[in-house]
């Protein structure tokens, strides 16, 4: 579960990237975070993951306050950033082992989990190579694997489908569904409305730092014959 209560963030004292937003992301659902470029999606994700600090407001992840119990909150998060170009000098397996050490995954568990994830994402033969030699999609996969290693309750993914091949995108969507069905939380940002429509139980639309809509997909579409795209464009046009 993720709770944002009256959260605001201003960059450089002028640009208000997030303006007094409140949002409840319940356990057991896949929550899509939609919005045009520069709407405040990545800033909100950075606030939840502790990468930046809010100017005001409270953020809780699985009940852990990100300000007073930052490490507790972080332990519950599996985060996939939008830029997968991390630690290019490490081999895939070294990166995963490092993440396992950082998140305290036991020696027995890590081998089973790595093996399972590598098979699902078809990365088994690439683990011994440096991340530098990976394609964009492979880098995305290794970062996703690193984020899921410690089996976190809350998945936060920033544009996770970018660069993934159809098979891996399908696997990820299946894994997101499985994870939510077990009573966990999946929160992800996307530009692709079709993905949101097919995968999400609920969505929030953000524009100019405000939450313009939060609720179920059907609720957003208002009626069965109107498209999500049309509603999205209507909402964000005047934001």
């Amino acid at each position, binding site marked *: 579960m993720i709770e944002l209560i009256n959260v605001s963030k201003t960059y450089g004292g002028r640009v208000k990237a997030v303006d007094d937003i409140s949002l409840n992301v319940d356990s057991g659902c896949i929550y899509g975070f939609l919005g045009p470029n520069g709407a405040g999606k990545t800033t909100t994700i950075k606030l939840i993951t502790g990468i930046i600090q809010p100017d005001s407001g409270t953020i809780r992840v699985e009940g852990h306050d990100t300000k007073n119990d930052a490490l507790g909150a972080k332990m519950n998060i599996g985060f996939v950033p939008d830029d997968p170009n991390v630690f290019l000098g490490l081999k895939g397996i070294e990166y995963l082992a490092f993440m396992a050490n950082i998140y305290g995954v036991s020696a027995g568990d890590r081998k089973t989990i790595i093996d399972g994830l590598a098979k699902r994402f078809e990365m088994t033969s690439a683990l011994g190579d*440096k991340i530098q030699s990976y394609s964009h999609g492979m880098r995305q996969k290794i970062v996703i694997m690193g984020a899921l290693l410690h089996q976190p309750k809350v998945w936060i993914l920033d544009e996770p489908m970018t660069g993934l091949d159809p098979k891996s995108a399908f696997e990820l969507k299946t894994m997101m569904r499985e994870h939510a069905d077990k009573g966990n939380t999946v929160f992800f940002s996307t530009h692709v409305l079709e993905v949101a429509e097919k995968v999400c139980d609920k969505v929030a639309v953000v524009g100019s730092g405000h939450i313009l809509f939060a609720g179920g997909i059907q609720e957003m579409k208002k009626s069965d014959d109107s498209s999500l795209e049309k509603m999205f464009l209507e909402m964000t046009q005047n934001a």
Partner: protein
Amino acid sequence: MHKIWALTKIMLKGGSSSDNNKKKSRWWLVLLLLFAFGSIAFSIMFMTFGLFDLLSTMGAAEAILPLAFGATSIVIFFFGIFYVVSVMYHANDIQIMLGLPLRPYEILGAKLMTLVVYEYIFEAFILLPMLVAYGIKSGADILFIVYSTMLFALLPIIGLVMAAIIVMLVMRFTRFGKNKQVFNFVGGIIALGLAIGVNIAIQSSVSSMSAEQIIALTTGQSSLTELLSRIFPGIGFAANALIGSASLTGLWNLLLFVVCAAAAVILFLGLGQLLYFKGLAGVTEAAARRKNLSLEELDKSTASTPVARAYVIKELRLLMRSPIAFLNCVLINFIWPVLILVMLIGGGQIDTLKPFITTMNSGLLIAILVGFGAFISSANAITSTAISREGKTLYFTKYIPVSMSKQLDAKAMSGILLSGIGILMLAVVAVLLGAGILTAVIAFVLGMVTVVAGSYAGLLIDAARPKLSWMNEQQAIKQNMNVMLHMLLGVLLAALIIVPVAVAGFAEVVAVIYVAVVAVVLAAVLRQRVVSGAAIKLEQMDV
């Protein structure tokens, strides 16, 4: 032609830092570089003055000119090989350029122009001071200056084209150089080895060379100058153009040199169209095996490690595996002690130094060694770029469940470990030079404490103003003012340790206590500043 010029401008801009906020600091960098290169240029100029006087006695002062052009061409050729590979094959702009509606010769022409401009830097501190010195001594006229300027502008072409042809052949028909990382490692180490080798050769030969030997080297049919003229076609014309600048012979030779340079450009463009574009295929960032890990490899790779150790290992791996970081942060540690030893042995000074060190107050010797240790740990750019090297991925340090202070401790530890090896080597060199074992051990222990202080000082500097916006790691390490600041601080730290001991002439025990107190207090205070002040600053920084 205007397309070639436009492309060249973009390529040159791509190679320099694009961080507009740091204009002020870049000016400082320019000044510092001018100072460093200026001192080399001045020493070359004064050497040329001496050589002119010496050769004038034989009536052979003109031999300086082919020597100047030849020596510069050699430098251009050797550095050219590395530049050609990085500008023509490893630069990221090639893929973009291949997709643009450009003719092959336009891309090749722009690449050659970019390379020529890079080589002007070498010319500026080798050829320029030699020509200026010769001009002053021989009473140069206006034509000498005009011809010199033209020759300066055109000289790099011939050496570069020779280097480019070799590189293009190798890249077209072999796998060598295709792996960027391996090439940068091997190339960097060879370049460093060459630089040290040349340094030692000059140290040990020039000082002991007689006037006759110098004359034999610079004049006559079997001289070095003659050999260089044969290797690099056109050098003879370049020299004769200046020698006869007052007459038509000069102009004729200048024209012949221009023809040589033009022929080189045509040869480059012709061969380039045949070899270059096919040779580009298969250039990769790093090698990939794409082979399943064996069970043992998997077991070994996934062994459980405490967080702090895992973090230090990660830092060390990244330092070792990036060619730029390896050369500037790791290798540099080992160069200092080796350089001292090799220079002393090469210069034959080891025997004169030994009795001096054996009889020296061991307190002062310890202070000197510890002070030098402080300098080594500040000169290696490990901690002073530890945060800058994270670049745009600094966010990683902020979302993982490890406190910032713990991460900074791990970053400091990577610097402490590598600098520690340098200090250990320094202590061994001291013993080889006649210092007592106990003295060396005390110097090593206190040196390690100073390294702790120096490493945290570097982190403090980098955390205060990290350079996070960069396109390649070179900008984060080599074009980072924090490295320079840390080095200056290292000099101050060394002075704080050595000067009082030397000036006050402390007794051995007092000297050791003084050095120990300074090192321990500084280490404690600087670490405290890092884990409290710098850590909080980084936690609150918006990335």
